[in-house]
């Protein structure tokens, strides 16, 4: 029952999202996500800030 509820929540959350975005999501390298989640929270913060700093001028996503 819980699984079905979770599936519905996921379906609702991802509804109205363009197919090209969902396709891009499926192509994201999840190795990096797994690695990030293995870090303590503050180390994730540090990683995000330091990579952004080192790639100034190459920003892809956020600023």
């Amino acid at each position, binding site marked *: 029952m819980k699984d079905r509820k979770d599936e519905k929540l996921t379906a609702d*959350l991802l509804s109205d*999202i363009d197919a090209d975005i969902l396709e891009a*999501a499926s192509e994201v390298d999840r190795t990096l*996500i797994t690695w990030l989640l293995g870090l303590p*929270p*503050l180390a*994730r913060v540090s990683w*995000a*800030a330091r990579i952004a700093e080192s790639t100034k001028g190459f920003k892809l996503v*956020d600023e």
Partner: protein
Amino acid sequence: MESLLAALVRSDVDFIVVGGMAAALHGAPVVTQDLDIVHSKSHENVVKLLKLLKKISAKYRGQPKGLVLRPSSVELEGGGHLNLITSLGPLDVLCEIGEAESYDNLIGHTLVFSDGELSFRVLKLEKLIELKKKSPRTKDRLMLPLLIAAFKQRG
């Protein structure tokens, strides 16, 4: 950036981490140079936040050369976004996000992250996706695949 987060926690400010840093905390490989927070607009909290902002020499970013604008309690109690630079790094203090959602509306959509002695609230990944989905900004749409991938990875 960690110092800025630590300063907010140690100053006992009620806030929620949102934006790119929240995404990274959830494992989405998003890089960002600033910390985005939504703060409680209670009088007591605004006083604590303003005291910290003064201590870390906060001023508005992007002002003409020679013009220094400091944040005030009136702005912190309003509905706008304060894009600041501090001695500990860039800080975006957001009174509301999305469709006028404030700290009080968002607090039920947060998780507490702890690292050593520091604990802080972060907007849930589902809520981040919901907000980015509705955003008209291109950079938010670019972040969506990374957020969705992190969401699916979590299972």
